[in-house]
């Protein structure tokens, strides 16, 4: 009986420790939530590392304020994400929240964030509804609106004059969104539009089918492990040399280390590459490589800019966050030098930026990296801003 009571008491104490709020201090508390476990953890980790490096480069403070970053893991589970956001808001009582890797989690946490009137800096997922009908004056994104990365490839394909384009993507919301983004800027009808199973291990049948259609270019969206498998299988089927491969999120900082030379020649579209020659980017790449022993991915770059954006805004408000309207206005100005070059924030909180096309090639140190080859979309705004009621 005593044993049981002791056990229950021990349990209760632990419970209390979990739920009692931390005391407010004079520091600024920033909540960082991303996918830090599971197969996609490499993205969340990149976001975190990029964000922390951004804070370090701002002198270890943002806007002159000491920062405490509270890290949360959403495990790529929607309900865990909602719970983690609510923990940051209600228990840790943070002043700002940043991060979020995946669109489905982003959509889920949008409501608790909005209800709490919490200022949020997104550094990856940028779903369409949040750029359009569900836009919120508190949400700012230093990444992109999801469609932009495929829109640029569509424009590139149109500019190149490809007539027979074949498209492949996994059969889920993001896959479909990226294909429609591509089609928005590539008006010629496609010779093939194939959706494969999520996390399908073997694409050999689809590759054979694609080659039979004799396309003059192939566009795919295969993030993470799917990208590694697909590119490998394309190379092994001898298809990589024959058909130009245009892609989004397939050959990026998270997959290139696994692919290395296999991916040479693959084209991809996004807002930034490690070979950019502005001083902010060069410093970022050099220090990131020195500190984390890997070439930074775009995910790290996005989060790095989030830190820089916050720093610039907090400098304007004198480090204060209590006046939300002032902080919002300061964030809207985006008065800082971004590592991507041109960066403005649109009325819906999403970036207006140039989108580029990159080719996988060896850099000056002989490592496999991304090389800028074109800029099809300059100062590009997203397609949903007209549906947003904010001015």
């Amino acid at each position, binding site marked *: 009986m005593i044993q*049981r009571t002791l*056990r*229950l008491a021990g349990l*209760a104490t*632990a*419970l209390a420790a*979990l*739920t*009692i*709020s931390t005391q407010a201090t004079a520091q600024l508390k920033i909540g960082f939530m991303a996918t*830090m*476990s599971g197969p996609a953890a490499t993205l969340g980790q990149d976001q975190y590392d990029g964000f922390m490096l951004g804070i370090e480069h701002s002198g270890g403070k943002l806007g002159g304020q000491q920062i405490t970053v509270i*890290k949360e*893991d959403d495990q790529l*589970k*929607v*309900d865990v994400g*909602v*719970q983690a956001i*609510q*923990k940051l808001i*209600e*228990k840790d*009582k943070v002043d700002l929240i940043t991060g979020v890797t995946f*669109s*489905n989690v982003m*959509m*889920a946490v*949008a*409501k*608790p964030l909005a209800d709490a009137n919490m200022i949020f800096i997104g550094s990856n997922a940028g*779903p369409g509804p949040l750029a359009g009908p*569900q836009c919120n004056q508190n949400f700012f994104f230093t990444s992109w609106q999801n469609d932009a990365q495929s829109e640029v490839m569509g424009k590139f394909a149109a500019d190149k004059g490809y007539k027979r384009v074949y498209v492949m993507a996994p*059969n*889920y*919301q*993001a896959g*479909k969104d990226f294909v429609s983004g591509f089609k928005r800027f590539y008006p010629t009808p496609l010779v093939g539009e194939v959706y494969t199973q999520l996390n399908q291990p073997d694409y050999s049948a689809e590759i054979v089918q694609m080659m039979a259609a004799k396309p003059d270019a192939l566009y795919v969206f295969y993030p993470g492990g799917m990208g590694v498998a697909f590119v490998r299988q394309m190379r092994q089927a001898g298809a990589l040399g024959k058909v130009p491969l245009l892609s989004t999120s397939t050959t990026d900082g998270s997959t290139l280390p696994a692919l290395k030379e296999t991916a040479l020649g693959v084209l991809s579209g996004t807002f930034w590459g490690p070979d950019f020659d502005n001083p902010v980017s060069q410093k970022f790449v050099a220090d990131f490589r020195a500190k984390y022993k890997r070439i930074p991915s775009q995910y790290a770059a996005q989060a790095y800019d989030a830190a820089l954006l916050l720093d610039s805004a907090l400098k304007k408000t004198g480090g204060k966050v209590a006046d939300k309207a002032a902080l919002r206005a300061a964030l809207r100005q985006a008065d800082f030098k971004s590592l991507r070059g041109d960066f403005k924030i649109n009325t819906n909180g999403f970036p207006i930026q140039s989108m580029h096309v990159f080719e996988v090639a060896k850099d000056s140190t002989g490592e496999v990296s991304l090389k800028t080859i074109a800029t099809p979309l300059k100062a590009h705004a997203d397609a949903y801003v007209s549906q947003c009621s904010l001015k």
Partner: protein
Amino acid sequence: MVLILAAFALVPLYCWWVDSVYPLTLFGRILVFALAALGLNLALGFGGMVSLGHAMYIGFGAYAVGIGSALGMESGVLQLLLALIATALIAAPLGWIALRTQGIAFIMITLAFAQLFYDVFISLRMFGGDDGMTIQKLSAWGPLTGNKVAIYLSLVAALVLAIWGIARTVQSRFGLVLRATMVSERRVNAVGTPSLPYRLVAYVISAELCAVAGYFLANLTSFVSPAYMAWTLSGELIVMALLGGSATVFGPVVGAVALLLLEEGLKAFTERWALILGPIIVLIVVFLRQGLWGLLSDPSEKPSGGSSGGSHG
């Protein structure tokens, strides 16, 4: 057990005391899974039906709220009815088909059905697809609409009712036949009692409880997505039920609470929480044959019957 249930009911008070809504959120989610695990265990622990598809019913309950709300049917009562009726309409035929098999085949068939519905809901673009759907207006219950404390307390009430209901069922004639089928279906049929109706009814009831859990989950998170139906979630429910002790009524509740609190606590410690949780689970299986609740509860309270799960065909 009464102590623990009372503690759940007192969480809102605790929230008021520490001036934070977070414990409500945390325990709300825990209790949702406790209710679902409880429901699953009626089929699993007392009926020997290992279903890897029960998360699908949680999804049904949640989508009843989501789709109802999107289509203008906001009444809380109607949404709950929709959840219950839809679940019954689907669980009955599915259960009937699945119960024609046993052992690993049953597990795989339930998994297959869950994947089927998961794929269906992912392709429902108008309701968000796999990005899910934010529920702007929660189930309408008059002046209590959207009141987190009210939602939480009704969840506690639902849980208590469910525990009481299952306890009564398990001891009733229905329950005795059900538990007999777990030991040997052949013998039950041999004495002239058809085993299928009993198992099917148990399956449907357990599905209904999961649907109710889903109903609350949607209201607590203001969100619904096909992720609520993923087979991995079904797996976690089974883990919760087994961890707590699937031979008892209250075991799954303890299992859910323990697993989720452990996760929460370990996460605060280290990002590598799985390194600790994994071995803990293995140790519990190896050494605590009665599950966690078996460890915590009074020996005299345990029902008759031995290991945590009975023998399976």
